[in-house]
């Protein structure tokens, strides 16, 4: 078992706390079968893979994948990017990745060279976490690996995405907020982490629409988490109907409950 990144520095007032779905992501990507697939798809020598996590939250998934890039992709030259509509999540993620990478470096030192103090092993690099909606700030055709643990819970309405003015006026000065105002702000940001609107699919559908444009046309691949109420089989069917050779397969699940897989990770790619 690879260690889970430390998120003790993260305030979960407005950021999603790592949960079963986050851990399923870690397990699915580091499983023997999935890492073998990724290693063959991104075999060196080739351009450094660009990894993007959309809605990075605490950064636990991106920190894990970046720190363990050698085990997952077979390379130490992955470039990691993140987006989140919550600026605090971007701050948290940068820190989580940095801690995870250092921790991993120290560990591999201990294991591989018990004597002496050899040079640190170079690692993959986090480029930046950007405040933004889904993939909107990204150039088309650039992303090699996209990860998305969406707000997937069916709700009556899905919350509005913050605008540039709300994000500057409501964040960074929580000390000046009244208790009610802080509660309202926190509830709003938390709702963005889980509330998926109709069938829990309103945000995921927007991301799926953007996938063919944002992924690298030759080797791009996306991993998206779905819950049973999202109707994963229907979602996969819709992706296969995009045409152009798009495929969708389940590559991880949280176990079967009453005949249903509660959570699944779907891989979306083209051969």
């Amino acid at each position: 078992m690879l260690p889970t990144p430390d998120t003790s520095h993260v305030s979960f007032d407005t950021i999603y706390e790592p949960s079963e779905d986050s851990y399923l992501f870690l397990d699915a990507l580091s499983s023997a079968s999935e890492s073998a697939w990724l290693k063959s798809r991104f075999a060196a020598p080739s351009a450094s893979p660009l990894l993007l996590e959309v809605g990075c939250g605490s950064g636990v998934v991106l920190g894990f994948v970046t720190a363990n890039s050698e085990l997952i992709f077979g390379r130490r030259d992955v470039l990691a990017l993140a987006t989140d509509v919550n600026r605090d999540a971007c701050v948290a993620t940068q820190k989580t990745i940095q801690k995870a990478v250092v921790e991993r470096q120290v560990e591999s030192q201990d294991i591989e060279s018990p004597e002496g103090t050899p040079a640190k092993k170079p690692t993959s690099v986090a480029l930046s976490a950007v405040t933004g909606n889904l993939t909107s700030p990204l150039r088309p055709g650039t992303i090699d690996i996209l990860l998305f643990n969406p707000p997937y819970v069916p709700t009556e309405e899905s919350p509005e995405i913050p605008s540039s003015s709300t994000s500057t006026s409501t964040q960074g000065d929580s000390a000046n907020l009244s208790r009610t105002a802080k509660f309202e702000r926190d509830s709003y940001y938390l709702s963005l982490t889980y509330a998926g609107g109709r069938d829990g699919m309103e945000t995921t559908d927007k991301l799926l629409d953007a996938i063919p444009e944002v992924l690298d046309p030759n080797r791009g691949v996306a991993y998206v988490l779905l819950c049973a109420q999202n109707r994963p089989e229907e979602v996969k069917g819709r992706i296969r109907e995009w045409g152009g050779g798009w495929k969708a397969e389940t590559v991880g699940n949280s176990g079967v409950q009453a005949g249903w897989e509660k959570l699944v990770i779907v891989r979306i790619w083209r051969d």
Partner: protein
Amino acid sequence: MKLLTVNFLTCAIKACKGSPAAFPLHFRDVELELQDVDFQPEFIRNIITRVDWEGLNKMANELNFPNIPEMKPEGEALENDQLLKDLHRFLLETQVAEGKLICGNCGHEYMIKEGIANFLLPSHLV
């Protein structure tokens, strides 16, 4: 935010996506910082392969960053240790702490504060 990030970004406004003027975004009023990153020559070569060199070159010129070649290095140039180190410093060690990124197509300004760029749009543009 590492400078290399800008090679993968464009204006968040849909109408700008296809416009050549929307890439690269232009820096204004930037404060840069250096942060040590372990130098791996192979990493830099694998980055060179994937970057849009024209975009990179424009950014280097706007920031007055020296020693960035006009043309994408190929062949023997990729064995030039000094060049790889210069690029390493430019792309992976240089961080933008404060400033703005501006779209050359629509003029929209994206603020960078404490190393984090804000690409959320005002409500009338969403």
